[in-house]
């Protein structure tokens, strides 16, 4: 054995897998998301449809809608949020235990939608952190399911058992949707390199 290296001296049975603790925790968390339905408008109807039998959110482990924020780890803001409701939204968000995530469902929750009036908040991400935005007015259940799948990806990819991904330095990292696609090199550049 080389200096500084190590080897596993124990022989593992066939049904034992070695992983990182972070990945194990993320794997558990992503497959049992408990949503907090903050449904204020027609997006809430689609949210109900997503949870109901035809679209069956239970296939993704996220069907346990809890109406107490203490038991939830995924807030789905479905519908427009008015300025009288926003302190309630923030309170509920703060009552949810860590780790927690937020999906902004629909045009109104994400941007205010067509309700550009004095009382409607123009996007909840101005006031609480948002992980996924779902476009649509209202989005179809398939879109919400896709966002939950993407959120599961994100949790598996970035999640840590201690919640280190929520620290300030980590938050500065570009989100996946903002990462630029790799630029294909022109053919002649490859030739010159060779």
């Amino acid at each position, binding site marked *: 054995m080389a200096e500084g290296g190590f080897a596993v001296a124990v022989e593992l049975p066939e049904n034992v897998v070695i992983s990182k603790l972070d990945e194990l925790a993320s794997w558990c968390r992503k497959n049992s998301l408990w949503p907090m339905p903050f449904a204020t408008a027609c997006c809430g109807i689609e949210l109900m449809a997503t949870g109901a039998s035809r679209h069956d959110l239970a296939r993704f482990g996220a069907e346990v809608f809890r109406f107490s924020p203490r038991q939830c780890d995924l807030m789905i803001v479905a519908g427009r949020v008015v300025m009288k409701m926003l302190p309630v939204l923030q309170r509920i968000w703060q009552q949810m235990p860590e780790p927690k995530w937020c999906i902004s469902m629909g045009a109104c929750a994400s941007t205010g939608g067509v309700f550009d009036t*004095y009382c409607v908040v123009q996007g909840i991400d101005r006031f609480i952190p948002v992980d996924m935005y779902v476009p649509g007015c209202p989005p179809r259940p398939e879109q919400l399911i896709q966002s939950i799948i993407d959120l599961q990806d994100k949790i598996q990819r970035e999640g840590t058992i201690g919640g280190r991904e929520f620290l300030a330095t980590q938050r500065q990292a570009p989100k996946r949707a903002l990462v630029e696609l790799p630029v294909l090199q022109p053919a002649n550049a490859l030739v010159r390199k060779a």
Partner: protein
Amino acid sequence: MSVPAPPDLNERFPCVTCSEFRGDTRLVVPRDDLVALFKFLRDEHHFDLLVDLTCVDYLKYRGAENRFGLIYIVGDSRSAARLTVRTFVNEPDTVVPSVTSLWRGANWLEREVWDLFGITFDGHPDHRRILLPEEFTAHPLRKDYPLQGLGERHNFPTITRGEA
């Protein structure tokens, strides 16, 4: 169902003007006679129900002489008869006598008009806002209030990941 004005209206209230449009009778009354007229309509002509109470802001409205027009619709619960009663107020004296002493149901309607138009109801038992939050300072259905507000919708602290 609209009905013609009571026949003894003009001798009791000479300052009330009466008009009709497409079968709807409308009485325009000065603000000072408002409660007396409603008492007359309620007690002597059985208009025992205040159906609605709302307001219109006529700022920059073509041909309008007054800023605010209040609309009261009173009804008779026996015959389903209805009458529209209007009165006008102008700034800065936007005070109207409350009719909560005649109809208890006017309570929330007057609070709504106060909330959105800033009309004060003199004698109201619970003169608070009803829809908007209490810290709101403007009256947003006034025509000189900007559509997107004065920044009230963004006047909140932001919660970030670290402090949640």
